[in-house]
């Protein structure tokens, strides 16, 4: 006498196969990582760690030797470790900023850059304390000669603006591309080239007269 009838056995086998398929599908769905949006966040905060107080005494006119404190940060949401570079550029009103549509960098010259490896979901932040060490005024045009950024001096050449108005520091996020071993402005996600950049304007109207 058999344990169960052949019809019952067939039913049980069918139930087992159905449950097996369902359980393994649940396991597959639970263990397969879902595709998520890949992006970076780039930010500059003021002296009090907020999106305010970017200038000493809220005066956009920076004086020689006056320290300006900002916080520069990047968050990696790319799903993997990334090698990034934040390029700090100085520009006047006429130099083009980066082009979001074409994903083109600004032609402004690089003052300095900060390279860093960052993990997925990690935010890297660094204080950026800068001041104008030297600037001269020539025929109504103010030229910044040296910048001090985080206690390092950077010599600038021909960095000028009319009456010292509308200088700006541009921060561009570059990422290392392993397929061609170079840094690229922005990043590529889903075959789309995206960029992140910021700029903060300032004036410098108290330069010393040339030859003075």
């Amino acid at each position, binding site marked *: 006498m058999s344990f169960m009838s052949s019809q*019952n056995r067939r039913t*049980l086998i069918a*139930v*087992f196969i159905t*449950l*097996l398929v*369902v*359980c*393994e599908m*649940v*396991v597959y769905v639970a*263990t397969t990582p879902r595709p998520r949006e890949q992006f970076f966040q780039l930010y500059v905060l003021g002296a009090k760690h907020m999106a305010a107080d970017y200038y000493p005494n809220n005066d956009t006119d920076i004086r020689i030797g006056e320290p300006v404190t900002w916080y520069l940060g990047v968050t990696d949401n790319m799903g*993997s*470790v*990334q*090698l990034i*570079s934040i390029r700090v550029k*100085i*520009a*006047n*009103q*006429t*130099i083009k900023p980066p082009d979001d549509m074409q994903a083109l960098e600004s*032609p*402004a*010259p*690089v*003052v*300095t*850059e900060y*390279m*860093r*490896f*960052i*993990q*997925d*979901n990690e935010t890297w932040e660094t204080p950026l304390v800068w001041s104008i060490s030297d600037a001269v005024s*020539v*025929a*109504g*045009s103010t*030229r910044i000669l040296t910048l001090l950024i985080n206690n390092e001096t*950077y*010599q*600038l*050449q*021909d*960095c*000028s*603006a*009319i*009456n010292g108005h509308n200088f700006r520091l541009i921060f561009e996020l570059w990422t*290392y591309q*392993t397929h061609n*071993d*170079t*840094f690229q402005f922005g990043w590529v996600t889903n075959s789309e080239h995206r960029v992140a950049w910021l700029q903060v304007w300032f004036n410098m109207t108290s330069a010393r007269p040339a030859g003075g």
Partner: protein
Amino acid sequence: MLMVAGLIATQPLAVRSQTVGSLEPRLGQTLVTLHQAESAGATPSEIEALVALLNKALELDNEALKLNAPDQAQRRIGLLAQVEQILTTVENRTTELIAVASQRSFNDRVLTYVGGAIAAVLGTISYAFTVSFYRKYRIKRTFQMRVTRK
């Protein structure tokens, strides 16, 4: 006067920029192996230790770039040797991590799918018992039925 100032102000700005280190291709290779380790299932804490070492290498390389004076050559060579040592350490640890993480991921995956199969077996046994009890209940009910005249 204004035109002259305007011409000065609108000309391209030239800045003596900081030189980027010559480490880039090496860092790129390390980044590729780190991505392989992540794909193999390395945990964030395992990757964090390697990333900290790489950032240390970047700092030392940056420091070495600033040592341009002839009397600083020895220190520069020392720093670059440290950078080289750190990168070699990271590469070796990453290679080990890839092997360990992929084995661990494979074991975890197998265990998870086996868990699914066990769940299916338990579900089938539960079904069999439920059906069996239901049938016994129906039979019992059948024998307990009373025939009444209407």
